């Protein structure tokens, strides 16, 4: 699992590459914790190269929703494969987390 981060104007971009499971989810946890500590307000998670996610990865996203909400931070996930999106939808997590198809759409939603 490789995670890279970047700032595109006011948006904090997190790129996920590889497989997000019980072994690698700690990396995402550290990255989101860093974004929270840095008081990032707009977070875009680019999932184009994310090939797998298990509950460990879902759990990390879920565990930050409350804090992001309190801090006024908005997070949008984009460019997810059908396979990964299918895992979010098994439990209906796609209704709690904003997921869009394209990166431009995600940026638009964050900047709206």
């Amino acid at each position, binding site marked *: 699992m490789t995670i890279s981060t970047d700032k595109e104007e006011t948006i904090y971009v997190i790129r996920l590459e590889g*497989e997000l*499971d*019980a*072994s690698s*989810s700690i990396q995402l*946890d550290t990255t989101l914790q860093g974004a929270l500590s840095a008081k990032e307000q707009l977070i875009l998670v680019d999932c184009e190269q994310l090939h*797998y996610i*298990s*509950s*460990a990865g*879902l*759990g*990390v996203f*879920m*565990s*930050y*929703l*409350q*804090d992001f909400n309190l801090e006024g931070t908005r997070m949008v996930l984009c460019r997810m494969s059908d*396979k990964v999106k*299918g*895992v979010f939808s*098994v*439990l*209906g*997590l796609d209704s*709690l987390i904003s997921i869009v198809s394209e990166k431009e759409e995600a940026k638009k939603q964050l900047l709206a």
Partner: protein
Amino acid sequence: MRWMIEKLNIGCSTENLKEIRRFVHHTLSKLSLPDHDIDMMVLAVDEICANRIIHSNQNDNSRKIEILIEDFSDGVSFNISDQGIFYDPTGRKDPSLEQLVQEKRKGGIGLMLVKKIMDSIEVKYENPTTTFKLYKRISKQA
């Protein structure tokens, strides 16, 4: 009637989850199943193995976990066995999504996924072995 049986015995390390997923995917790929069904079963096995490896075997690679896949005429069974601490989470009440968000829990949804994906989950303990038996009914593609 049983058509096929495949087995993997591997160390209890989360580093091995990738290999476990590869094994399950490779085995199920031989059965002409829809990709979505294969992906979901790979996920379910990964969830049980991750749980057993971390919570019952302390991520100790010297301990072993075994995954046995059997193909039946109406479905596929997965027997996941190890000799770690016995724990049967199947009777536990599932938390609501709101609870998970409020309590900032990172764990707790793995078994919920498995319950949604599989048709049955049974846990058996025969000293010193714990076995999770998962079954998925499937109508096979021609």
